[in-house]
């Protein structure tokens, strides 16, 4: 009797189990199918088949030229940031946003002088993304490291963590912005490879365009994953290196002769 009951019970359990499983499958399946179908159609937007990067030939970078910096300031509306009334020169220089800057170096052993532009190096493993508490600092699928201003709380931990001092905090109210480059008090920002141009289908950054126009051609921007791109070919023929390579961040920006 008892055994018989047990048997029945087992069957009932099995039945319940299978029913739940089937119901579950019926509920979930359309969702999965939909997702799969949508994924197949989703060709818009950035993809990881591309990784944007930059190669800077310091031999071609001219000492007294600031074309890249000026172009960046215009392209990204940095020139619209007003100096606060009453801020001293020193304060303003230390506090104003700078996405790209010219640095002049002298080798202490050989006395060789080099100039180069420094900006966000767009690491493959960016420390700023690691440390951001809210995830506002992030890396796009195409390798561009940028800040989602909507969830940046302005803690500046990314600025503490960045090994290249690439980031700027907006220290004051900003009244005037470009449509494509929002900017406001209390958030952190940095070079994003002119993401608005890239998304519009452009394949040069403002700094490269300006450098080319000035006749130096020291900056080469392109897709590191495309074997046919100019930058990939240049990488093969030139000896380039990453700044602070020992950190193994695999930067997207590399330099010739530093």
């Amino acid at each position, binding site marked *: 009797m008892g055994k018989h009951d047990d048997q029945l019970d087992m069957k009932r359990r099995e039945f319940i189990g299978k029913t739940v499983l089937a119901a579950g499958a019926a509920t979930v399946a359309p969702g999965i199918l939909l997702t799969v179908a949508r994924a197949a159609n989703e060709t818009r937007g950035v993809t990881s088949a591309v990784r944007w990067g930059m190669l800077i030939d310091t031999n071609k970078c001219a000492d007294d030229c600031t074309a890249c910096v000026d172009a960046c300031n215009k392209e990204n509306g940095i020139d619209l940031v007003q100096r606060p009334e009453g801020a001293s020169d020193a304060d303003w220089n230390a506090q104003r946003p700078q996405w790209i800057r010219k640095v002049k170096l002298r080798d202490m052993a050989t006395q060789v002088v080099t100039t180069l532009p420094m900006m966000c190096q767009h690491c493959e493993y960016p420390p700023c993304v690691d440390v951001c508490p809210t995830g506002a600092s992030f890396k796009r699928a195409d390798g561009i490291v940028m800040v989602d201003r909507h969830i940046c709380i302005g803690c500046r931990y990314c600025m503490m963590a960045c090994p290249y001092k690439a980031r700027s905090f907006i220290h004051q109210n900003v009244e005037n912005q470009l449509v494509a480059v*929002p900017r406001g*008090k209390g958030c952190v920002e940095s070079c994003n490879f002119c993401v608005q141009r890239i998304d*519009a289908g452009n394949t040069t950054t403002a700094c490269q365009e300006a450098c080319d126009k000035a006749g130096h051609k020291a900056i080469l921007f392109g897709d590191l994953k495309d074997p046919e791109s100019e930058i990939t070919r240049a990488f093969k023929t030139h000896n380039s290196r990453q700044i602070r390579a020992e950190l193994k961040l695999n930067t997207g920006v590399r330099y010739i002769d530093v």
Partner: protein
Amino acid sequence: MRSSTGIKRIITGLIPGGLLAVLSMGVMSEPATVGVVTPGSKAASSEACVAPTEEMRRNHMDYLKHDRIEVVYKGIRDTEFGLSSCVECHAAKDDKGGYLPINGKGQFCDSCHEYVAVSLPCFQCHRKTPAEQGASGDSAMTGSNPHRLGLLQSGGGQLTLSADELRRLHVMTLEK
């Protein structure tokens, strides 16, 4: 003793309750000036927004948030419900023909948000007026995007679609 405290409670309950009722009546009796498109804006001359007005009123924040994620994380900038389109269409001009900030007192965004007491932080970072002509950084908004529909803003940033066309476009994109 006990009943008196009970009465006291009722009275103390009635006072804030009554106050609330009076206040809410005051709000309701206010003339419904909100919901009117700002005179002098482009939107005033077009028949409908990118979606029916009722829908926009109720859901614009969700549309904006959806598109903001598309733009920031996926780089899809030809979205239908971008904030810049709101500004483009709804910003009014002053007497001299210059644009007024859309979040300014009594302007399109402000009038409603002020009325419902919802903060409007978008314009702490976003531009409050339509793009100036020839601003280089805005090349993406008017320039050579191969993906973009190319209809919403032709060259000068003028809205050249009729309301009917817009609605069809909207349905099309929703189906997609």
